[in-house]
């Protein structure tokens, strides 16, 4: 190969490169798409996980909706208050600071704490257990099934199944609500990030029934209600709930609970 052919190759490839560059450059100008600047800015402020927690198809969809004024600026559950504030600045809207929320699983019965009616060896997906007798092998019909469907749909890896029960890492949770949708037992709900005590049981059966089924189930004894100095705990349908707005985080309910149902977060 002589010097001339090297030069020739160089010239042709170089020329092709320059041609392609110019071609793409011109194409870029001709095919320029008018993008809504507002939408771009909003999109940049959004987290970009495309989790769909807002109900729109990805962050792009929400950005378009916000820019068009069809959605509120605080629609993104993941970004929470800081993102809402940023978008509010872009859109010129005042935003009230909402509280950050996290998911909470209302069951904490570990493997040795609940009874089984039978052994189940089928598809390991909680959603499938709607088709098996009694809604799963657990005697308790309100308990976490522990197959981790919530963990598998969580886009933020915030849920782990430990010893037969799902647990939410509240620092990783962005409250997108995916787990709430898939849990067939409806155990997961959103509580404020600052909440310190929560009732980790959702069993609404009478006390003696619960006692047979689970050693850490709420029997509806109302000791927590009597001992709460701030009137924050209520028992309805033999199941206690804590009103997080009234709760002063004193911990009296947790101390008095005979079944250790109230969990400190």
């Amino acid at each position: 190969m002589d010097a001339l052919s090297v030069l020739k190759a160089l010239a042709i490839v170089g020329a092709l490169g320059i041609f392609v560059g110019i071609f793409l450059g011109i194409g870029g100008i001709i095919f320029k798409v008018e993008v809504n600047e507002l939408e771009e800015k909003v999109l940049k402020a959004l987290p970009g996980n495309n989790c769909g927690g807002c109900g729109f198809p990805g962050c792009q969809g929400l950005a378009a909706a916000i820019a068009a004024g069809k959605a509120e600026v605080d629609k993104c559950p993941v970004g929470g208050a800081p993102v809402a504030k940023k978008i509010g600045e872009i859109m010129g809207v005042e935003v009230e600071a909402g509280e950050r929320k996290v998911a909470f699983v209302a069951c904490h019965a570990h493997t040795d704490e609940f009874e089984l009616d039978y052994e189940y060896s089928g598809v390991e997906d909680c959603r499938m257990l709607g088709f098996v007798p009694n809604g799963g092998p657990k005697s308790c019909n309100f308990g976490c099934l522990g197959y981790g469907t919530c963990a598998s749909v969580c886009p933020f890896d915030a849920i782990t199944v430990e010893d037969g029960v799902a647990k939410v890492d509240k620092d990783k949770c962005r409250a997108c609500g995916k787990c709430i949708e898939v849990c067939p037992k409806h155990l997961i709900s959103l509580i404020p990030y600052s909440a310190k005590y929560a009732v980790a049981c959702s069993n609404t059966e009478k006390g003696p029934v619960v006692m047979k089924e689970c050693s850490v189930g709420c029997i509806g004894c109302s000791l927590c209600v009597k001992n709460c100095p701030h009137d924050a705990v209520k028992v309805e349908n033999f199941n206690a709930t804590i009103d997080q707005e009234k709760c002063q985080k004193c911990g009296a309910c947790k101390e008095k609970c005979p079944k250790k149902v109230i969990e400190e977060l």
Partner: protein
Amino acid sequence: MIRNLIFLALGSALINNVVLSQFLGLCPFLGVSKKIKTAVGMGTSVIFVITLSSIVTGLLYKFLLVKFDITYLKTIIFILVIAALVQFLEMFLKRFIPSLYKSLGVYLPLITTNCAVLGVALTNVSKEYDLLEGTINGLATAVGFTISIVILAGIREKMQYNDIPKPFRGMPIVLLSAGLMAIAFCGFSGLI
């Protein structure tokens, strides 16, 4: 003539399947085959790009590389042209067919560096196909890719419900399934 083209198409779509017997394009084959929906998206993009790039590289080879006697530079020039083509296609779709652009989405730029695309262009040259044959070969190869990635995605969707032994979870079982698929595809060699 038409007979030959049909045989060519069958051959490159099923018998010499681009993924299962030539081991090209394995990256998207394993990476984007978790759900049938995304697999279809990827497959459509591949069909789109490979067919177009077969035409463009065919023309380029005939009227530029052969003419100037620099066929030894085909690999680098094809890469350049295919990358530019995909980029251009993306712009074009974004402007004129936004719905298609949205559904192809991220897959288009991913294909830029896909070896299956380059592989088809180089096969067309090395087997001395003319423009029509090259285009048919490209289209059929891409259809073969789509068939196999959609099948694998279907298998993987069902596999989620199985209790797989721990050491095989994740990629190993996917590779095993792909291997079994390749063996099954061997059956097509009796077709012609």
